[in-house]
């Protein structure tokens, strides 16, 4: 089985400081669901940045979709980034675009025509319960609404891997479960999902999900599954 992502002894250092991530090795398999946990400052966001190709490691090897992305030339990276959906911790919505346009952005970047993107974007807005707010700009949306738009934007392109940094941090528990159900639905369609979270309760929502725990920049593998394909997931309804 070809892995979605493979990290081998990866280290990350910002500038001349000490290593933020040290000796990170794991393999993510297609169709798997992973939770990335750990205390604040453990390096979760840095690890996710390496996953969504926003950073290159200081050392070690990373293979995404079977390709070495550490030595890959810049011009090849966009093609790989389009296969990755990202939910940023701070949402990173484009402030002067409406909710509709923010969600449509990945499709427009991928060259989908205006006619073809209207349906999927409207459907996504409806699913996250923001059809009425399609024309609202981020500043007019609550924190939870912004987060839903950010998630919709990450999943609209049906990515092969979804990377979410604290995606339920600003929503009520009911919405958090709904969002996780969306991730689970995507996961059932074959998308590999990696969710960084503090919320220990979320871990129980998706049976069969693997847990990666980061502490002081080092990865522990409590389920022992990171080097081996996990068993098929059984998702709770």
């Amino acid at each position, binding site marked *: 089985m070809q892995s979605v992502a493979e990290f081998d002894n990866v280290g990350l250092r910002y500038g001349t400081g000490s290593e933020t991530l040290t000796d990170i090795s794991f393999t993510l398999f297609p169709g798997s669901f992973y939770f990335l946990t750990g205390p604040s400052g453990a390096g979760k966001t840095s690890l996710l940045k390496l996953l*969504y*190709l*926003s*950073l*290159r490691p200081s050392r070690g090897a990373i293979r995404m979709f079977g390709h070495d992305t550490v030595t890959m030339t*810049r*011009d090849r*990276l*966009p*093609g*790989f*980034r*389009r296969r990755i959906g*990202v939910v940023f911790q701070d949402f*990173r*919505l*484009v*402030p*002067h*675009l409406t909710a509709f*346009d923010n969600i*449509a*952005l*990945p499709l*427009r*970047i*991928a060259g989908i025509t*205006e006619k073809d993107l209207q349906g999927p974007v409207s459907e996504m807005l409806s699913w996250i319960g923001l059809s009425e707010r399609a024309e609202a700009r981020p500043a007019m949306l609550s924190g939870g609404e912004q987060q839903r738009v950010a998630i919709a934007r990450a999943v609209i392109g049906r990515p092969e891997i979804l990377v979410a940094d604290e995606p339920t941090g600003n929503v009520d528990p009911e919405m958090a479960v709904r969002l996780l159900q969306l991730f689970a639905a995507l996961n059932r369609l074959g998308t590999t999902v990696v969710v960084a979270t503090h919320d220990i309760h979320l871990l129980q929502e998706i049976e069969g999900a693997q847990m990666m725990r980061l502490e002081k920049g080092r990865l522990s593998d409590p389920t022992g599954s990171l080097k081996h394909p996990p068993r098929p997931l059984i998702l709770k309804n």
Partner: protein
Amino acid sequence: MAAPFAFAIPAHDRKLIPDGRFSGTMSWVMAIMLFLTLLAAAAAISLGNAANQGSDTLASEATVQLLDPDPAARAAQQKAVAELLRRTQGVEAVTVIPEAQSRKLIEPWLGEAANDADIPVPALIDVRFDSPPTVATLRQVQQSLRRVSQSVRIDSHASWMEPFVSLMQTLFLLALSVMLLLLLATAATVVLSVRGALNTHRTTIEIMHMMGSTDIQAARLFQRRVALDALFGGMVGLLAAILVLWLLGSRFSALEPGLLADAGMPLYGWLLLVVIPVGVAALAMLTARWTVLSALKKII
């Protein structure tokens, strides 16, 4: 204020890089730069044309002077010399200058006295050769004319007009340099403007980047806007320049024919003035593209 030619940019691209935050004054700065560039270009073309025409014409022309103090002898010699010149090989045209016209030439200095018959004025003959004569040719012609009149003198126009032609050529080079400097300044304006816009929209570009936008896609957002601003600025600058050149042209045409008579704008000059704004729009577009691509290389 909506940016000029906004309709030429797809609505979603316009939303990504809103006009108000980018173009605004840019198109008017471009209009001013283009106006000055076109004036410099017009000056360069006119002066170059004048220098070329002047040197071409002057190089083939000469004036024959007959200095005999006796007016009757002078008139007879003028007629005979003109006849001899017409038969001389290599002479294309011979124009006998009437005495009245010669006296008119000195009228600005002598006033009414210029028409006093007691004041001798040389009899003049303009000669145009079919090709620029050499010094030896001129000497040979003078020797043959001396058979008719010992007081004959032949002056090549090139010798006394050379400083004027040289001045025209210097002014041409100066105008050309000013034009090139203005084009450089325009490119620098575009670089600064695009860098400013890139800073303003850095977050948007980074988000697009993370979603798989290529550098070319990001550059296209800026280069298209800059090209349209430059094109709008070019059109405004061109209209203003044409108006100014037309006004100057009407002032020049009111002057007596003289040294500046050749400083007109040839047809190819007008065509070049129309082409320059299009060229500047292309230059601005390429500069914007280069600026964005260079800046984006710094992020992975």
